[in-house]
């Protein structure tokens, strides 16, 4: 391996080296400048001289393969790499500020602050998973925030890219990573399940809201293996005021079996964005860990959990979309609402991990001040939530897959589009009004949503009636 050429004032491939700003166990970080690149840059250089940990080399190789392929606000932009034949380096955008590690003295954080913080990390993870990458080292020191608010995930040395060879697959006898945050399946050598990142994010959320790490700090394999059978203390047993919905979210992330966690980071972000809609199960009630008898049964039946098919990151995300159905429960024609239910049912039938958000827009008047109570004195908002749930009942969806939302807005189309955008909805199902008079007068909500949405939109019309005009049954999506 050639000696490192990186030192202050040196020039490599057009980059002028500045000062060393960080010297870690695996790599050093240097400020660099380039005449044709604006903005602050960092050069990451692996520790690769003789006698160094071979892990440093392999993880740097992995990072060199993955970084140039990543895009978007949730990753540092990569400007160039150099390989081991000459001088190994990666030049990346320098994100101003510090990592989340600096917040450790402030723990536990207020619940609301932690909720918003972790929701932003979940959104970043969702974006990363969509790019076929599993991070595998989610922890406070891997997370930074842009001034505009987006979480940025750094350090891809342990990551897995579903479309690239995994150089770490056979490299080490022990799973490599940060022990307190490592998902249990990693201890069994599984590296291709994106839900491993949701486990790590669950550890972070637990830690940030209780001040304690759910599985301690043990670095030994024996200490790490405990998480294969021993569940953590429920947060409510540590903090009396711990919100049940938050415990539901945290413990779902920390499920031992990946299949019992959230299917996608987007679905986790969705729950964090709508805490009142989180379906509470026995998890939220738990005040004690599982009895030892249960834990021991898990411990000595490890083999029963073993078989699993190879997972495909893109496939898993595609089979777990967020579907929003826009319903007019007040003025909507019953045939149209029925047609919407039939279409929704068909789509859900093929996607067992999808979740459904039923959305209704409570239209506000532009000028008059709206009254919350209607003429009969009942609360309009609550009435509509009830109506939405009633509409969804025949779908017989597990409650954890269903949520209902009433948006209040002057312009329904804009409100629906914004809902879809903010919640990273994958598919909007919307009915088209049949009455041409109303459509002319009000403009078509479905047409605007279909035209402007950034996701798939299915426009539903009721089945053709005998009297309908020839074009009345056109469906476009």
């Amino acid at each position: 391996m050639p000696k490192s050429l990186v030192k202050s004032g040196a020039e490599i491939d057009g980059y002028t080296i500045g000062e060393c700003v960080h010297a870690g166990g695996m790599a050093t970080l240097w400020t660099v400048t380039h005449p044709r690149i604006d903005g602050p840059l960092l050069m990451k250089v692996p520790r690769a001289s003789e006698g160094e940990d071979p892990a440093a080399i392999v993880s740097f190789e992995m990072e060199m393969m993955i970084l140039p392929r990543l895009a978007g606000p949730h990753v540092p932009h990569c400007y160039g790499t150099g390989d081991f034949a000459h001088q190994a380096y990666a030049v990346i955008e320098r994100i101003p500020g510090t990592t989340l590690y600096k917040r450790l003295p402030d723990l536990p954080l207020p619940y609301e602050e932690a909720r918003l913080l972790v929701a932003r990390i979940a959104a970043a993870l969702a974006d990363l998973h969509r790019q076929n990458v599993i991070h595998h080292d989610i922890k406070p020191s891997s997370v930074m925030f842009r001034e505009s608010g987006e979480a940025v995930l750094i350090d891809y040395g342990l990551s897995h890219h579903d479309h690239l060879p995994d150089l770490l697959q056979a490299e080490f006898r022990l799973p490599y990573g940060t022990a307190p945050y490592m998902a249990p399946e990693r201890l069994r050598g599984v590296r291709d399940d994106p839900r491993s990142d949701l486990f790590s994010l669950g550890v972070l959320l637990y830690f940030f809201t209780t001040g304690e790490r759910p599985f301690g700090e043990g670095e030994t394999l024996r200490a790490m293996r405990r998480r294969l059978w021993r569940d953590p203390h429920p947060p409510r047993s540590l903090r009396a005021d711990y919100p049940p919905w938050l415990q539901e979210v945290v413990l779902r992330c920390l499920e031992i079996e990946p299949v019992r966690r959230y299917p996608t980071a987007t679905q986790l972000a969705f729950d964090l964005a709508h805490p009142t809609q989180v379906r509470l199960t026995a998890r939220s009630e738990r005040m004690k860990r599982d009895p030892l008898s249960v834990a021991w049964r898990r411990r000595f039946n490890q083999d029963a959990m073993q078989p699993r098919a190879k997972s495909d990151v893109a496939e898993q995300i595609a089979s777990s979309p967020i579907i929003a159905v826009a319903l007019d429960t007040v003025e909507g024609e019953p045939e149209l609402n029925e047609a919407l239910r039939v279409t929704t049912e068909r789509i859900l039938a093929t996607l067992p991990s999808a979740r459904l958000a039923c959305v209704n827009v409570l239209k506000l008047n532009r000028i008059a001040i709206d009254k919350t109570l209607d003429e009969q004195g009942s609360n309009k908002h609550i009435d509509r939530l009830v109506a939405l749930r009633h509409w969804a009942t025949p779908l017989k969806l597990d409650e954890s897959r269903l949520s209902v939302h009433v948006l209040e807005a002057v312009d329904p189309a804009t409100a629906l589009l914004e809902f879809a955008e903010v919640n990273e909805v994958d598919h909007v199902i919307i009915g088209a009004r049949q009455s041409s008079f109303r459509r002319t007068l009000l403009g078509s909500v479905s047409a605007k949503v279909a035209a402007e949405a950034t996701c798939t939109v299915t426009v539903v019309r009721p089945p053709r009636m005998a009297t309908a005009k020839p074009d009345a049954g056109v469906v476009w999506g």
Partner: protein
Amino acid sequence: MLLAVFSDIHGNRQAFEACLKVARARSAERFILLGDFVGYGADPEWVVDTAMDMVAHGAVAVRGNHDEAVNTTTESMNNEAQIAIEWTRGRLDAAQRRFLAELPMLVEDRDRLFVHSEASSPKRWHYVRSTADAAKSLIATPAHVTFCGHIHRPALYSMSVTAKMTSFVPKTDVPVQLLRGRQWLAVLGSVGQPRDGDPSASFVLFDTDSCQITYCRVPYDIASAANKIRENGLPPWLADRLSQGR
């Protein structure tokens, strides 16, 4: 420079033509042919003539076991392959047979090695089925990248400086950078008789500057290739398997 690498064409004109068209459209500058030009398919003359012309214009070609079997009757083959090779022998003229007989077993080109089966003992026609097989081949050569075919299923292996192996089934059209500092074995799928469940023809593009390899798949007129096999009285399974990719 952009290399286009083809393996196991097996007398399938339709598949080879389709791949060549795509490779040229993607600006391939140099062509590498990893052997098994004949056997199974019904257009051996056209395929061999095309290969001879390409070699005359600078392409690299190596010998496959079916190419060898055209000239030597000692090769042990399964029944269908044997019928096909005997039929092929009758179709080729002396010049075509000589071209196949004189093909080198392997070609080294800078830090790249081209071979039909694998590098440790190319004349024994071993298949690379596992990381252990791949390791044997990689240990036998100092080349940074070895390109081979023979098994008709794409795979990409690497070996680190500490002799740790990785294996990977490449995704179509996703370039992978073959990092220096480790050795790579790129096993190609087949142009003329894919066996990985995907019936489309398979070939590889390799950019020697960026060291990026891209596995490509090309749809082609399977029905015509299969009909010609049936019309010539070759075993029907050789026609049927094309549409199944098995």
